[in-house]
């Protein structure tokens, strides 16, 4: 795909953020007690560039941890239901999103914009502009390249900034939304003739073949490998909640007196209660069965049904896991499985 490139000089960079701050909410990676989070900013220099990946993914911009769906009031005339007013969703621009996180939002769209479309998600997606930072460094947990992604991957981004050797930025304009930002900030972006994006990106080796992974994991359904891999799992939901693509949610009614609201909140297939029936029966009664669901959904069901993977290789779940379950390691193990003979 041939995207247009522009040059954003380091002197213009703050000016761009300053201009954006005048018209909409601006978020970006901010350092807080040594950790980086995507946070709302008021000044350009709050944004840090010294980070591998923020603690939390960017999914909350389109799929927040609590989403109010509608509110209700009960009176003697009956129950009045009021839908969420989509016009209250503000315009936002998110700076410094890592390519894997932007891809995460792209893949999450496949779930939420599957018919029937989720109107709240759709509106949030429309209102959000993503200016990603290509990666010039990576750590031991990153493995996006093994899943078809990369440090300069543009899926989900509207503009991608690539830092050059002179500390200026190459701006890759990916979508019309991105082009609008360029056109509404005349003078900040300069034309550029030769573009060698690749040379500014970190090199990350490909460790396994992702098409092989899909076949192997689908065949492994009846094997004991998932029990082995998850034996040390303590059954929390950290991996799912920090995952940029995990889209499972729970619906709850929060009431106070005669009024309340219905909310959509994050949930995780790794939690025991996720599939627990009222009868007490639990179809996924072991952590092995739950871990299998997690991996199968990401690497078999989603590619099969939606054409995208449920994982972008950001490695967050491995970083956050209380017991160091490393998804990269586990996927490598699965791709090394010999062709499996299924049970009769």
């Amino acid at each position, binding site marked *: 795909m041939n995207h247009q490139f522009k040059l954003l000089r380091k002197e213009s960079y703050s000016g761009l953020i300053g201009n954006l701050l005048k018209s909409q909410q601006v978020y970006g990676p901010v350092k807080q*007690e040594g*950790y980086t*989070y995507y946070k709302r900013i008021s000044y350009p220099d709050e944004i840090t560039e010294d980070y591998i990946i923020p*603690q*939390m993914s960017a999914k909350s911009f389109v799929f927040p*941890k*609590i989403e109010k769906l509608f509110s209700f009031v009960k009176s003697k005339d009956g129950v009045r239901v009021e839908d969420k007013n989509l016009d209250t969703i503000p315009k936002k621009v998110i700076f410094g999103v890592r390519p894997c996180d932007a891809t995460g939002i792209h893949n999450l769209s496949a779930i939420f914009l599957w018919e029937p479309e989720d109107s709240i998600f759709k509106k949030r997606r429309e209102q959000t502009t993503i200016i990603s930072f290509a990666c010039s460094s990576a750590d*031991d*947990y990153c493995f996006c390249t093994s899943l078809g992604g990369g440090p300069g991957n543009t899926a989900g981004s509207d503009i991608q900034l690539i830092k050059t050797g002179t500390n200026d930025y190459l701006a890759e304009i990916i979508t019309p939304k991105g082009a609008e930002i360029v056109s509404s900030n005349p003078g900040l972006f300069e034309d550029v003739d030769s573009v060698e994006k690749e040379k500014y990106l970190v090199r990350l080796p490909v460790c396994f073949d992702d098409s092989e992974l899909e076949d192997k994991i689908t065949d492994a359904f009846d094997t004991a490998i998932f*029990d082995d891999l998850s*034996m*040390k799992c*303590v*059954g*929390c*939901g*950290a991996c*799912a*909640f*920090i995952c940029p693509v995990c889209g499972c949610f*729970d619906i*709850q009614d*929060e009431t106070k007196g005669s009024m309340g609201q219905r*909310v959509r*909140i*994050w949930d*995780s297939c790794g*939690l025991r*209660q996720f599939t627990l029936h009222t009868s007490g029966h639990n179809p996924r009664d*072991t*952590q*092995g069965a739950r871990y299998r669901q997690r991996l199968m959904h990401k690497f078999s069901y989603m590619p099969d049904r939606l054409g995208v993977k449920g994982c972008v290789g950001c490695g967050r779940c*491995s970083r*956050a896991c*209380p*017991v*160091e*379950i*490393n998804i*990269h*390691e586990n996927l490598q193990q699965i791709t090394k499985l010999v062709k499996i003979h299924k049970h009769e």
Partner: protein
Amino acid sequence: MEKLREIAGELLKSNDVKVVIGYTKGMNNKVTPFFAKKQEDIAKLICGNSCAQNLAVYLYKKDISDLGKPAIVANIHTLRGIMRLAVEKQIDKKEMIILAIDNAGDIQKLDNLSDLENYLSSVIPQLNEEDQQMLDELNRMTPGERMVFWKQEMKKCIKCYACRQACPLCYCTRCTVEENQPQWIPVASSVVGNLEWHMMRAMHLSGRCVECGQCGKVCPVNIPIHLLPVRIAQEMKTLYGTSTGISLSEKCDMSTFKPDDKENFIG
């Protein structure tokens, strides 16, 4: 390390135990829990100061109990966890072998709970420096400043319950947060709801927490949540003079009382 592997190897060989719960080096040189079931697994077992996780949590996990009698590599946190679980009648009838490892790396094989009690009788539980510093800092603040601090922290909480799941003493099969009649704690992750959850967890651990700090270590958003139960543990030690996870005869300070308990605020 050699001695650990030697003992663990013999235990598996003689079929005395079916699994050794210990640590190994995972990807990126990270220490991770490990279950040695076969002779060839033994070489993967490691020990050392980086093996800090509390493994007691695995003793009552069904998948692991199903494997058969375990041996467990135990640092001080794990030892106190095992003792407290036994006191609370969770694993008191369980057959197991404890491989106690002290700070110097010396290893001792304990065959039963009274061996463990003897071993622990010489141990003086001590909070690590970093946690003590944070506690001191918070104690110096005014209540208003502390509220701002905790409010900021509670905003970060995503209610993944890693703190609960990683805690050996949070063994309830049904937690109060899963109770919805009445709904004590909102399921959604809101600031007040999160505050209520962590407050409740800390209170439910009062007189029981073994101060391993595991809940704080595992938090994916880095909330120093262990400070709450640890602060209570300190308070209870000052008030009632007992430590947890040390002796088979200890009680829960919270489920008992003295007629002359002192306070200065009830009018």
